[in-house]
């Protein structure tokens, strides 16, 4: 089944935030962000801006009727700066005017005097100064301290990954419409309608039942609209609440890029020990997460880094510590993978370092250490592992030996072009790591004409969750998909939702929908059974008809429903699903936090132009653990898209802040995401369909985040290609591997970071060092 939104998407008829027909009297907002990353506000002058034609009012923190606080996990983030600013772009004032142009013109006339304070952009520096968002956490398995003596080979090193801009093509935005009794309705481009509801409720000082948040769909989210949609919704709501007029704010791309957080940059120190057979005996890692100026979701992201610090390998002795470091960058936030990719990059770097030093292929070490069913993760969960199956199927199906031979032959024959190959096995846990978030509700109405309307807590942002939910209902009711409509996500219809995140949205909301539809069906079956004096178990629904004892009756779906209504059978159901089995004890850092894990293996091959430092990704060949895919079109799309986004993070996407905390890659002209010419020439995806039972909806495993991590293979493939050209040069494990880093590495000498005849430092990137 194709994505149910495809038809209107292709005709330009799908409605996004900026497409909602305006209510008469609508005003337009624009925020004035701090020009300085850290400092004390001495004077804010809005007089000239306020006097401009069309400007209705300029709001500051003084206008907040509730609490000036939007921090979710930790209350450390004011909506509007009061006395101190913590990052460039932090909202200091919010202009409301009768046109977008007037609002933006007024922003340019606002003047602020700020006494600057020291700016920290580097996570290690912040950690040294004790600037931590939360206390550090450590995951431990076995005993690393007493393991090193048993290791034949020990390697230490450092690895760094940069941030990543979400670059959802639809920017952030909100549209707040005042209602009677001081209530407010907010259209928001958010992955977390309840998060917006809570933030607005807090800022305005209104109970949640007066705050209605409605989401039709997003033009991309990727985590960037999980918590960070709150700001714009709260600003619009605040203005609308005061002015009793609708207020809309759809961010300009440069506002969006400058004011919102990104994927967390990480720096890490690692130590890895192997025995003579190349089994990893011990692994220690210390992670320095660059959280930015406020907690946002950083503590949860940091936790997932620890959960995935050993990727898909079993290591008997592990000690991993993570620091969430407060800097003066915009608060970094959720991004597809949610800290997992960073944890995986570090262990892959450690393995690569060992392999390079030992003169073996990294794949040899990878393969020897793959998780087996029954192995224990550092957090105590026991693996139900598909890692060996994915690995062996991928290496056999795509003939990795032949691929490697081809690469070696090419490299021997070509002086100025080199190929590189890397294997990237992955393992990703599915569930919100905060156990309480693993719950969802679905409200299903069957109307008397047989049509069905469904509302869940899921937000559609291109991942096809509504399509999957519709499939669930169509299957349970055994009716045509055309009879079912998935409605907007709305906090007045479904309360206390978890955001659409953690790859778990289809599982959670799909299961709730399954329960709701099943309850209605059971009532209708019971009615038929009583009517026909048969056992309820003998009544089934098939192809829009009632069947009794495997015989088709003349009762079709529509008449069944109408009879139900006449007999006063409830045709609506609100069901609640909570993932069973999962638990986690944060005091012990042990438990069973994930409903299941998703596995896979990718083979990534690249070609580097050794004159220019440019490169192409030739192929990404994957065997992916789908469980039993319920929608292969949607799932393939998620994998292809995830791979390319992951490659982008590892190659061309470079978030650049200067030492003053100002974003230099602040537009699409300076921040590059993959275009159609830069994607792998070939992406092959093979389905590992497994027979095991799992907690996924219809056993169709979550597919949103895991494939992003195949992209990490591109970094190591590039590294291998560079090393084929420059056999002695030393260069850091430092992603992304931009053409700059490739060229510098191609001509690096044995002393790390030194380029022949260019001996100055190469690190100009504040967050990248």
């Amino acid at each position, binding site marked *: 089944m*194709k994505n149910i*939104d*495809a*038809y209107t*998407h*292709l*005709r*330009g*008829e799908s409605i*996004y935030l*900026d497409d909602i*027909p305006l209510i008469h009297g609508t005003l337009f907002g624009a925020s004035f962000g701090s020009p300085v990353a850290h400092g004390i506000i001495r004077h804010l002058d809005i007089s000239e801006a306020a006097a401009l034609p069309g400007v209705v009012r300029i709001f500051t923190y003084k206008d907040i009727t509730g609490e000036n606080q939007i921090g979710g996990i930790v209350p450390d983030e004011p909506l509007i700066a009061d006395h101190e600013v913590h990052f460039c772009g932090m909202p200091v004032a919010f202009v409301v005017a009768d046109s977008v*142009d007037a609002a933006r*013109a007024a922003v*340019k006339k606002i003047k602020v005097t700020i006494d600057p304070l020291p700016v920290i952009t580097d996570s290690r520096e912040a950690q040294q100064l004790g600037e931590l968002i939360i206390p550090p956490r450590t995951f431990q398995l076995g005993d690393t301290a007493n393991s090193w003596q048993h290791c034949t080979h020990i390697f230490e090193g450092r690895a760094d990954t940069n941030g990543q801009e979400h670059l*959802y*093509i*639809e*920017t952030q935005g909100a549209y707040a419409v005042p209602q009677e009794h001081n209530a407010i309705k907010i259209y928001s481009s958010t992955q977390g309608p309840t998060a917006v509801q809570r933030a607005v409720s807090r800022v305005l000082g209104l109970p949640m039942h007066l705050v209605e948040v409605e989401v039709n*769909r*997003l*033009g*991309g*989210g990727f985590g960037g609209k999980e918590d960070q949609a709150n700001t714009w919704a709260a600003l619009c709501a605040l203005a609308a609440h005061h002015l009793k007029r609708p207020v809309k704010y759809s961010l*300009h791309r440069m506002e969006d890029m400058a004011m919102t957080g990104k994927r967390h940059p990480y720096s890490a120190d690692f130590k890895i020990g192997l025995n003579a057979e190349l089994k990893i005996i011990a692994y220690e890692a210390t992670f320095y997460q660059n959280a930015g100026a406020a907690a946002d979701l950083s503590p949860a992201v940091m936790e997932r880094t620890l959960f995935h610090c050993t990727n898909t390998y079993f290591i008997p002795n592990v000690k991993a510590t993570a620091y969430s470091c407060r800097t003066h960058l915009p608060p970094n936030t959720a991004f597809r993978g949610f800290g997992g990719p960073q944890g995986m990059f570090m262990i892959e770097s450690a393995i690569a370092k060992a392999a390079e030093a030992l003169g073996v292929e990294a794949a040899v070490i990878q393969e020897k250490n793959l998780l087996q069913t029954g192995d224990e993760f550092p957090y105590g969960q026991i693996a139900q592992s598909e890692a060996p199956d994915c690995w062996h199927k991928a290496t056999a199906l795509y003939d990795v030996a032949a691929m490697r031979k081809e690469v070696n032959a090419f490299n021997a024959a070509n002086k*100025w072009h080199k190929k590189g190959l890397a294997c990237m096995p992955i393992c990703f846990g599915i569930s919100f790591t905060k156990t309480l978030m693993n719950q969802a509700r679905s409200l299903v109405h069957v109307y008397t004409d047989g049509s069905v309307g469904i509302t869940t807590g899921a937000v559609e*942002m*291109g991942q*096809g969750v509504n399509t999957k939910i519709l499939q669930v209902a169509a299957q349970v009711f055994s009716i045509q998909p055309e009879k079912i409509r998935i409605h907007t996500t709305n906090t007045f219809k479904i309360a206390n939702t978890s955001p659409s995140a953690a790859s778990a949205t289809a599982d959670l909301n799909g299961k709730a929908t399954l329960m709701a539809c099943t309850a209605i069906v059971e009532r209708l079956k019971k009615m038929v059974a009583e009517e026909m004096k048969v056992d309820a178990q003998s009544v089934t629904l098939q192809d829009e008809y009632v069947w009794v004892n495997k015989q088709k009756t003349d009762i079709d779906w529509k008449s069944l429903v109408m009879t139900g209504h006449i007999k006063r059978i409830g045709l609506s159901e609100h069901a609640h699903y909570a993932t069973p089995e999962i638990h986690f004890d944060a005091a012990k850092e042990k438990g069973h936090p994930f409903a299941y894990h998703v596995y896979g293996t990718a083979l990534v091959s690249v070609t580097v132009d050794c*004159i*220019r*430092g440019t490169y192409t990704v030739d192929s990404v060949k994957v065997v992916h653990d789908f469980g039993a895919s319920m929608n292969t079109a949607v799932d393939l*799309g998620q994998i*292809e*898209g*995830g791979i*390319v986004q992951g490659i982008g993070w590892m190659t*061309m996407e*470079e978030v*650049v802040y200067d030492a003053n905390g100002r974003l230099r890659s602040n*537009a*699409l*002209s300076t921040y*590059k*995401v*993959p*275009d*159609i*010419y*830069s*994607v792998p020439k070939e*992406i092959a995806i093979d389905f590992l369909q497994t027979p095991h039972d799992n907690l996924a909806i219809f056993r169709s495993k979550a597919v949103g985040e895991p494939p992003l991590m195949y992209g990490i293979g591109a970094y190591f493939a590039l590294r291998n290609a560079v090393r084929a050209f420059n056999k002695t040069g030393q260069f850091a494990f430092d992603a992304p591997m*931009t*053409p700059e880093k490739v*060229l*510098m590495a191609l001509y690096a000498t044995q002393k790390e970071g030194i*380029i022949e005849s*260019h001996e*100055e430092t*190469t690190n100009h990137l504040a967050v990248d060092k």
Partner: protein
Amino acid sequence: MIKFILNNKNIATSLPAGMVLLDFVRYHQHLTGTKVGCNEGDCGACTMLVGELKNNKLQYHALTSCLTPLGNVHGKHVVTVEGLNMEALNPIQQAMYDESATQCGFCTPGFVVSLAGFCLSGKPATTQNAIAHIDGNICRCTGYKSIERAAAKVAALMQNRQSTEPTTFVSANHILPAWFADIKQRLYSLHTELNGQLHSTTATEWVGGGTDVYVQKHDVMKEANIRFLFDEERLKGIKQEGNRCIMGASATVTELSESPVMQQYFPRLADHIKLVSSTPIRNIATIGGNLINASPIGDLTIFLLTLDAMLVFSNGEQRREIPLSELYKGYKTLDKQPDEHLELISFELPGNNTFFHFEKVSKRTNLDIASVNSAICITLQGDTIQAVRISAGGVAPVPKLLQETNAFLKGKAVNESTIKAAIAIAQTEITPISDARGTADYKRLLLGQLIKAHFMTIAESALR
């Protein structure tokens, strides 16, 4: 009053001519299928098609409507996704549907419009050409593979066109709505009503394609008093006069790449131009604009510097000719009076022993601004350099002709030590800075590599 046809509807508006087409269509015509993505021509979500009559032919090209003022579509046919809709999905949309080439859907109308632009382009029906037409569209969800598959299907739709006019073919074959067949006649009728209403004599702003000015000062342009240069006939065209090539300042990059003169004298032209922005930007970006915007990294500036291009400026009364190499006085500072505008660019076409090559490296190979770019024009006798001009962008406040390097190379034999010495000299005359496009160190190393690449490529050409 600006008049044009929007999809199937005649428009006459007195809104400011400097307003961008995207805002007009979305917020005044309430056609919201076209999306706002980046406001600087880098994402393609706002792509529209513009059809115009040229030499009795109706020609369509895609453009980024976020950078296109209404004044530049006066008298033309503007097509948005709504104008492509038929009762059911049209075959382009159906191809994308069948290949699941849409996820969040926000970029999708832009892709559909660009693919329709391919169908209307008259280009050969290859997958490669179809993909070239979507090279300015960014999708963050799909990873493009499904879009590539859809593009192949769209190319197949056009397989049987042969010499039929594209509009006739697409309307007859129900690829696009039937009314496309009447547009040509409607544009003729529209033209008889127009008579240069846009010709401002008191203009304070001059706009060519708008691709730079609408990025740099978007907010002031809407209400500005603008002279629209894009469609001025005297500024158009690329032709050969004797051994010189003469280009109008408003000739677009697409016109340059499709010019028979350029193709004849620059055999690698297609490869070079593919590195310059994207299809919808090339369709509206003018050569003059690239020179006057004075970016230290302008691709065509670097290109033309090595060709020793001459420029003709006019203030409406007097003309003045200066070499391009003397235009730039400092960062974004030009030897140009406020009342002057660029009319013509001319240069000597390369002779038999003269080789031209262009190199550019950027974070992303396509649709990106260079970290460093460089061009070379070299005349060889055997392996001796008779004359050489190497230019470099991104290594100084202005687009740079490497005078000292060039002087050193003249008369030398091409060999490894000459090239090595030339690179060392080049290092002394450049002053790159660290910015979002790379560190100064990188740019230094890269320029040296590009000089090597020039000689390696020319050696290949010279051997042929």
